[in-house]
């Protein structure tokens, strides 16, 4: 079968790295070609967010900022709960070419194992709405006592 862990694409762009860098790392750029709006605190550890008019939202954590050659961030895996510790790492690398920029994007980490803490949460019988509702009932029973 083959579990795809890493995605990589390279494109040649007819614009200098400085312009590509700005499109990748500014709120204005990210909010145009990627999201419908964006915010970014451009430093390692900084928070970034993209939102879409559909109501969707992506929260990122900036990891690498080496202007104008490397920009990396992590974000959650689509479809997993917000508090899931599994995240993929996205890295853009910009290489100047005679006529513009060779841009490579890699996203890796799709095939990572759930960590122990998370696996425990999986195996426990505390998952799911049924048990959440059970806890609510217990809480209410206890409060009434």
């Amino acid at each position, binding site marked *: 079968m083959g579990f795809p862990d890493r995605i990589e694409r390279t494109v040649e762009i007819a614009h200098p790295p400085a312009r590509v860098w700005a499109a990748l790392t500014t709120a204005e750029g990210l909010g*145009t070609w990627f999201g419908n709006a964006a915010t970014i605190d451009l430093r390692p550890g900084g928070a970034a967010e993209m939102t879409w008019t559909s109501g969707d939202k992506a929260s990122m954590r900036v990891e690498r900022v080496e202007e104008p050659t490397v920009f990396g961030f992590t974000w959650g895996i689509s479809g997993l709960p917000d508090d899931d510790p599994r995240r993929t790492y996205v890295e853009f690398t910009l290489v100047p070419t005679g006529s513009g920029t060779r841009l490579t994007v890699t996203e890796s980490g799709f095939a990572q194992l759930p960590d122990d803490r998370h696996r425990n949460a999986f195996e426990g019988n505390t998952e799911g709405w049924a048990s959440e509702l059970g806890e609510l009932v217990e809480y209410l029973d206890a409060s009434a006592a």
Partner: protein
Amino acid sequence: MPAPPDIEAVAEEVFTALADPSRRGILAALAAGGPATATDLAASLPITRQAIAKHLALLAEAGLVAAEPGERRRVRYRLRSAPMQVAQQFLAALARDWDRQLDALQELLNEDAAPQPAPDEQGRNRS
């Protein structure tokens, strides 16, 4: 603690389970309505009780449902989300549309020179 699951094997079991319409129906019923007994499921699905028992055994073997004691000592089956979330990692990789995203980036850079109308909404590839 069991050995770490082989995530590829886990994903394969999920997709195998989902390939069968009866098993999809059982999983969908458990997702929609919560834990249920084989009898409950037979009442709500167009599948015989015997076939449901067979499918539940397979699903339990694959870790997609867990048996638990229910009322009047009847076994209830509960959906287990962990394998689904592993399969979702696989689907997330397939659904990541960098090609379209990079096209949008190139388009933005090319259009930057001239004033342009607001860009079309870029299809989201994260949910």
